[in-house]
């Protein structure tokens, strides 16, 4: 089943579906970049809302190196290997802002390093507009003077580019240290303080709700690229549900490295 793409539509389709399981999010990334490359969907901005805490980790990372597997299992934290490279992060529903951009290659600077800076820029401007003094830090970080507030990752597939970004609205640093395998002296006060120094969260700087932050970021990308709100199609959802089950929930994928 394929969808017809409205040739007259320009700019982004913005989709913000109901909260979904972690594997479905990663399946939607694969589905939408493939379909964009195949000319079967429009350039899209997708907002992620989660149902469980999770650890999205990098495509080239070792599952066992990154995750306290037993703790994660006992506490309902779902690890999923991303389609993109980069590092691991602990995310909890309501505590992070995550979105994916699916763009034609021709909309994106050819130089990869420049493209990270360029595609992060609207979000950075949105946060600055809310009074958070953040900047892009090469290659793929969003930085505040107090620490890293988020990061991006990209995948190119034919004529399509996926650029997704996660930023901390709030963060339970102790829980992050329990879930991720970061260092030996975990959960010592020193380790918690050290981690808190490296990480910045939006709630330290603003009173706006997470939804207001998401609205500001979406508005910034719509200003940049044009477009309007839309919905995922049935075909996109069916493909993603299928991939979530057959790939992104499986040990074959998540524990492949």
């Amino acid at each position, binding site marked *: 089943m394929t969808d017809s793409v409205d040739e007259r539509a320009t700019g982004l389709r913005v989709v913000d579906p109901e909260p979904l399981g972690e594997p479905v999010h990663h399946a939607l990334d694969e589905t939408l970049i493939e379909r964009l490359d195949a000319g079967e969907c429009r350039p899209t901005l997708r907002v992620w809302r989660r149902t469980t805490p999770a650890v999205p980790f*990098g*495509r*080239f*990372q*070792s599952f066992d*190196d990154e995750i306290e597997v037993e703790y994660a299992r006992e506490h309902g934290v779902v690890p999923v290997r991303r*389609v*993109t*490279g*980069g*590092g*691991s992060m602990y995310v909890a529903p309501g505590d992070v802002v995550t979105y994916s951009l699916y763009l034609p290659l021709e909309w994106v600077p050819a130089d*990869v*390093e420049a493209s990270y800076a360029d595609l992060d820029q609207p979000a950075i401007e949105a946060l600055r507009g809310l009074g958070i003094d953040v900047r892009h830090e*090469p*290659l*793929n970080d969003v930085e505040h003077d107090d620490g890293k507030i988020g990061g991006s*990752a*990209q*995948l*190119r597939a034919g004529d399509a580019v996926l650029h997704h970004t996660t930023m901390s609205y709030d963060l339970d640093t102790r829980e992050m240290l329990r879930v991720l395998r970061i260092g030996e002296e975990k959960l010592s006060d020193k380790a918690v303080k050290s981690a808190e120094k490296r990480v910045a969260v939006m709630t330290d700087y603003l009173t706006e709700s997470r939804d207001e932050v998401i609205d500001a970021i979406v508005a910034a990308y719509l200003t940049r690229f044009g477009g309007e709100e839309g919905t995922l199609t049935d075909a996109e959802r069916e493909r993603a549900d299928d991939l979530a089950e057959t790939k992104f929930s499986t040990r074959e994928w998540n524990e492949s*490295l």
Partner: protein
Amino acid sequence: MRGESAVKVPGGKLVRASVTYEAHVQSVEIRGDFFLEPPEALAAIERSVEGLPRDAPHEAFAGAVAEVDATLVGFDADDVATAVREAMA
């Protein structure tokens, strides 16, 4: 023999190497928080240094990795060479 290394590269990415070797490199696993396109090229990069003498110079390792048709982002062939040789040091 089997050795491991973790090399922090300029820009902050971590490249981990796990190497099985005797007089020559037998098998290599490269892991880390880098970017690589196409992603499937990881196996080709790992295979590219297999068979090299364990005491081959840095340039031999870096040159073999650079031969692979892939775009390395956030790390480069020199970083892989450094990590692989360090795992055997």
